[in-house]
C-alpha cells in the first residue's frame, strides 16, 4: 500500500505511544493544532492531554523539561517545529542529553527523541532553511537519523523511540506529502529498522552516490536519467548519520571506484566531508579512480526568491553533472 511520509511518522508515534506508557509527545502546536505540519494529526484526540502536550514557544525550556523527564525515566518525543529552532535548545541536547550517561558513568540514561523537520523548506528564507545533520552528528552520545522514505520514517522513528539513548531524528518538510509504497511488513506494528545501517536503494557498478534525506530521491532520479546513458549508479541512503555505516559505503566504492556525495547542508565540515574522510582514511582509498565530488547546498545563507533558492540546494542536474565529471564522460 501507499503511505505518505507524514502518515508514516504519525503511525510510528501513534504505535509507540500505544505500546509504552512512558512514551509521550510534546512540542509547539503538537496537540490541539495537530502539529504545525500535521504530523501528529489525531494523536491528541486519541491520547489526550497526558500523552500529547502543547508547549509554549520556549525551546530551551521544553527541551530541557523533556530531557529531565527522560532522566527520571520517561521516554519523551520532543518535537521541534523545525530544527532551526533547536539551536535555542542545543545546549540541552548536547550537554544535558548526550553527555549525561557518560558523565554519570552509566547511572543516568537519557532515552529521548528530538524530532522535527530539518533543512530547507520552500521559500522560507535564511533563518528557516538550515541542515543540522553535521552538527548533531559530531557529538558522541547522540544517535542521529535522517530518513528518506515512508518506510525509513516509520521503521527508524519506532527504533529511535525504543532506543535507550538520545536520538536526533531529522525529518524533511518537503517530503511530508510524498507517498511511498509500504510493504505489509513495514505496515506492521512490529516493524523497526536497525539504527546504524545504510540502505542500498539501487544497485549499480559504475559509481556510488551516497546521500541522506530528501536528496536520496534526487540521486535516484539522477540514477534513472544516467541509466538511459548506460551509467549504472549505486545509490546509498545513509539513514543513520551517527553511527555511520562506513562498511556499506566502502564496499560500494570498492566495486564502483567512483564516489559522489549528495546533501542539502553546507559543504564545510558536512556529511560529505565526513564520507570523504572515511574513504580517504581507509586502506581502500586507492580503489578510487577519480576525485570524490561533494554535491552540497551552496555555501551561502538561503535566499528567498525562487530562482535563487532553487540554485542553493542540489538539483538532479548537479548530481548528473558530478557523476559525468567523475566518470569523465559527457
Amino acid at each position, binding site marked *: 500500500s501507499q503511505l505518505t511520509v507524514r502518515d508514516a511518522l504519525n503511525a510510528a508515534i501513534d504505535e509507540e505511544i500505544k505500546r509504552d506508557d512512558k512514551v509521550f509527545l510534546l512540542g509547539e502546536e503538537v496537540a490541539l*493544532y495537530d502539529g504545525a505540519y500535521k504530523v501528529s494529526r489525531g494523536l491528541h484526540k486519541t491520547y489526550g492531554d497526558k500523552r500529547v502536550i502543547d508547549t509554549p*514557544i*520556549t525551546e530551551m525550556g521544553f527541551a530541557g523539561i523533556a530531557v529531565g523527564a527522560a532522566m527520571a525515566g520517561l521516554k519523551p518525543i520532543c518535537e521541534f517545529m523545525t530544527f532551526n529552532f533547536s539551536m535555542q535548545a542545543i545546549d540541552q541536547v548536547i550537554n544535558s542529553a548526550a553527555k549525561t550517561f557518560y558523565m554519570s558513568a552509566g547511572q543516568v540514561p537519557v532515552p529521548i527523541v528530538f524530532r522535527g523537520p530539518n533543512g530547507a523548506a*520552500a521559500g522560507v*528564507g535564511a533563518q528557516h532553511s538550515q541542515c543540522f545533520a553535521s552538527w548533531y552528528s559530531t557529538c558522541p552520545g547522540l544517535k542521529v537519523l535522517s530518513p528518506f522514505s515512508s518506510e525509513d520514517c516509520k521503521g527508524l522513528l519506532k527504533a529511535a523511540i525504543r532506543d535507550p539513548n538520545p536520538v536526533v531524528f531529522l525529518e524533511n518538510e518537503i517530503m511530508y506529502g510524498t507517498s511511498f509504497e509500504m510493504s505489509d511488513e513495514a505496515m506492521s506494528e512490529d516493524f523497526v529498522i536497525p539504527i546504524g545501517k545504510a540502505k542500498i536503494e539501487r544497485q549499480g557498478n559504475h559509481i556510488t552516490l551516497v546521500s541522506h534525506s530528501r536528496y536520496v530521491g534526487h540521486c535516484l532520479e539522477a540514477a534513472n536519467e544516467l541509466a538511459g546513458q548506460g551509467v549504472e549508479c549505486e545509490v546509498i541512503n545513509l539513514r543513520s548519520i551517527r553511527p555511520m555505516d562506513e562498511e556499506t559505503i566502502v564496499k560500494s566504492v570498492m566495486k564502483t571506484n567512483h564516489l559522489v556525495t549528495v546533501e542539502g547542508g553546507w559543504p564545510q565540515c558536512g556529511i560529505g566531508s565526513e564520507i570523504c574522510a572515511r574513504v580517504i582514511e581507509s586502506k581502500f582509498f586507492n580503489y578510487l579512480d577519480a576525485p570524490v565530488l561533494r554535491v552540497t547546498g551552496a555555501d551561502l545563507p538561503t535566499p528567498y526568491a525562487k530562482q535563487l533558492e532553487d*540554485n542553493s540546494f542540489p538539483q538532479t542536474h548537479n548530481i548528473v553533472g*558530478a557523476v559525468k565529471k567523475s566518470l569523465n564522460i559527457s
Partner: protein
Amino acid sequence: ASTEATFEVAQCKLHKLEQGPATTVTCTREDALKYYRQMQTIRRMETTAGNLYKSKQIRGFCHLYSGQEACCVGMENSITPEDSVITAYRAHGWAYIRGISVHGVLAELIGKKTGCAQGKGGSMHMYAKNFYGGNGIVGAQVPLGAGIAFTQKYLNNGNICITLYGDGAANQGQVYEAFNIAMLWKLPCIFVCENNGYGMGTSVERASYSTDYYTRGDYMPGLRVDGMDVLAVKEATRFAKDYVLKNGPLLIECATYRYSGHSMSDPGTSYRTREEIQEVRQTRDPITSFKQKLLETNLVTEDEMKKIDQDVRKEVTESEKLAIADTGPPLEDMYDHIYVQPEADFKVRTCDPVTMVASR
C-alpha cells in the same frame, strides 16, 4: 471642518508606574488624514499580499498584519526617523511605515530584484534605515533591540529603540535576559508586546501562565494600551519615549488582534470561532473605529476618506502590477552579500562541486 480635535482614549493599565499616558489626545486634521491613509495602505497591502499568496506568487511564509495597523501607525507617529525599530517576522506593516514603499514590500514578497531586500530576504526579512527587520526566530529580536538601544546610549544620540515581540514570544527566556540587562544599563528601549491573542494556534492563556503581559517585566514598569486605537497607541508611545530617555526601559502591551491565520497555510479558524473574528472586526477594528471618530468630531469628511481609500487602492494596485512585472534577481546576485568587503579573489562554492563563483 475643524483643524484639530480632541479625543478621549481609554486609560492604560499601569504596572510600577505612578502616572500613565494622557487620556485625552489632540489630533490635527493633517495627522488624522495621514494616520488614516497609513492604516488603509497597510490593510490594502496585506489584502493584496494574501491574494498574491493564494495565486502562488508569494511563497513560503507570509504573516499578515491586518488588524494590527494601529500599533505600527500609532508608534511611528510618536518617534522620529532617527529612532529605531525592530520586530519579528510579522513585518510588512512595520517595513512600510518605516519607509519602504508598498512596491518595495510587495516586490520583496514576490521575490523580485526591486524588493526591499532584493528578493533575498522574503516576507520575514525586510529592512530600512533604522529598521532592523523582520526576524524569523521567535524572541531573538528582543536582545537585538536592546543592543540597538545600547548603541543609542553609547553614542548618546538621544534616540530610542522600539523592540516588538508577540504574546507567544513573551515567554521566551531571552526576553527576560534582555529585560534584566536593559534595566541594569538603563537602555532607552521601549519593549512592546503586540498581544494579538494567539501565537499560531495557541491562545494566550494556554501559552502564558500570566497573560498580563504589561506586568511580565516584573521590576520593569509597564502599561497596557488599547492597540486598536491609533491615538491611544500614539499617546502611549509619546509618553514612553519620554520615559525611557529619562529612566530606562518601559514595557508596553499593545492589545490587538490578528484577522488572518498565523501564516497563509493557517485558515485561522480551528482555534477560534469565526464569530470571534467577526466581533472584533465589527466592534474594535482600528480603521473603522478611527474613521468613526473622525466623522463624529467632524475632523474629516466621509468624502475625504473615500478619496483616500481610492488613492490607496490605486497605489497598491499599481505597486502590485509593477512588482509582478519586475524581474527576479539574476542568478549571479545569489553569491553576493555573503560577506562585507570580501577579498578580491573570494569565490563561493555552488551546488555543483566544480563550480566556484565570484562574490561581491
